[in-house]
């Protein structure tokens, strides 16, 4: 049961990240390939503040999220008005920098040895992890509800307009550069917050947790599910992480000498699914409504 809750908490965080990527990429067209950098910064930031500086959980979460937002602001200010390729490279580079800093700055992060432990911010006995999972679910549901409301709001139209034809939107008096920067900062800061909230689920952090695989998984999930649909990320995460980590790895009786291959086969199957979706349903399982 504890294992199930652990994996499920991870899935919920993935859904929240996919939802944030839906806002950045699906609506605005910002190709953020550094999801893991923002999420990882929030997670490591919180853990370092708690373990090394003895800060209370809530203070650490707020500070780590703010730090992520400030760095997003600087990164966004540097690259957001460049073309998509440049943004891909810059955000990927950002997440790689975070990864290497975490690995090398041992005085702060304890490097590959790992840092911990972060306990849950509250203790309600044996079911603490379940209560925390419920909290994560509510939090993620609220963020998805926000996305849904946003798409009907003037700002949602503005984001779509920026994605479709930014010069035309500017000609209509929209300060698109500024709005992209504000929105990128807010949503990347939220990715940092999701990382911060993930810290107590993992309890103990090593740099392997923040490898590029997280970014790719979130991207594949969003594209599979439907990048333009609010529920796209949710569906996508369930057919990728949910299907493999939760169902196959846990409940399917695989031969022992076969199990070590599962993570690799999993990535191959993700890739196959992605190719099939892009060939037959480019807008994802849910399409664009």
């Amino acid at each position: 049961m504890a294992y199930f809750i652990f994996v499920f908490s991870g899935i919920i965080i993935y859904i929240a990240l996919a939802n944030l990527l839906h806002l950045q990429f699906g609506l605005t067209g910002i190709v953020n390939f550094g999801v893991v950098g923002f999420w990882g910064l929030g997670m490591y930031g919180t853990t370092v503040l708690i373990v090394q500086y003895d800060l209370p959980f809530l203070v650490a979460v707020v500070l780590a999220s703010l730090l992520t937002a400030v760095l997003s602001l600087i990164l966004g200010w540097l690259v957001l008005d460049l073309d998509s390729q440049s943004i891909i490279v810059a955000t990927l580079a950002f997440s790689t920098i975070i990864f290497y800093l975490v690995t090398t700055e041992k005085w702060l992060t304890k490097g590959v040895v790992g840092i911990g432990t972060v306990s849950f911010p509250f203790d309600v006995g044996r079911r603490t992890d379940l209560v925390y999972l419920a909290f994560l679910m509510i939090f993620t549901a609220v963020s998805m509800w926000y996305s849904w409301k946003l798409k009907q709001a003037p700002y949602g139209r503005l984001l779509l307009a920026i994605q479709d034809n930014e010069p035309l939107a500017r000609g209509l008096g929209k300060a698109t550069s500024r709005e992209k920067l504000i929105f990128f900062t807010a949503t990347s800061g939220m990715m940092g917050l999701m990382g911060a909230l993930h810290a107590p689920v993992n309890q103990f952090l090593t740099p392997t947790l923040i490898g590029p695989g997280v970014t790719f998984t979130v991207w594949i999930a969003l594209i599979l599910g439907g990048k333009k649909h609010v529920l796209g990320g949710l569906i996508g995460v369930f057919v990728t992480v949910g299907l493999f980590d939760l169902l196959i790895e846990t409940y399917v009786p695989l031969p022992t000498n076969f199990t070590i291959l599962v993570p690799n086969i999993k990535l191959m199957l993700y890739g196959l699914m992605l190719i099939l979706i892009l060939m037959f349903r480019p807008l994802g399982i849910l399409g664009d409504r």
Partner: protein
Amino acid sequence: MATTKIVLKNIRKSFGGRTVVDIDNLTLGAHPIEGLIGPNGAGKTTLMSLITRKLSADQGQILYLPANGAKVDITHNSLDEVARMGLVRTNQIIQDFESLTIRDSLLLSLSTPHFDKFYRIFGTQKLAQSVNDEIDFYLDYFPFENPNGHALSAGEKKLLDIIRCLMLKPKFLLMDEPTAGLPYDLTQSVMALMQKKAVEDGLTILIVEHDLDLIWEVCDFVHFLAEGQLMTQGTPEEIRKNQMVAEKYMGVSHV
């Protein structure tokens, strides 16, 4: 009624050594509806891009003088800033937002910085309700096949582009070949609407157009541009009879 003027001083723009616009002194908008004509490559579209700050001039100064008597130097403002000041342009090449319906596209145009905030997700219906009549007026005035869907044909996209600009309640509207791709009767209704806007709302309009009959018909004053330079200006009758205009436009042998 006082018009909104734009004054260009010593404006130069070159692309890779070729001077495309070279104007010493030009006042646009002294009359409610003015025309800007010239052969292909005369620099008309570039001039419009310079005025709306889509392009930056290599040198010179651009002044914006709204009817209220203000005098603003817009040489270094951004495209969206001058649009918010009321200086707006319709596009020569068809431009559209693929994922927005006609109505959403117009709502986007009507929305103000007050509503364009990422945290403003409540009470957004208020905006739509308050402007419904305005949107309906335009959607009734022009024949859209499906006013609640997407703009389909090139003509619909062209009309939508013009309506989007009118929604901004501009003070000075630059129209870059507004009739290209529109059938004759639609051109007539666009121009009738423009003349109405000029009289009723005090909108100043500058039209770039190759359809000279339209220019003679609706413009109060015409500027003639060739090889990036202002060749002559005058009333439509004067420009029409001008020997040089005919030569530059059609070549000497055709005159």
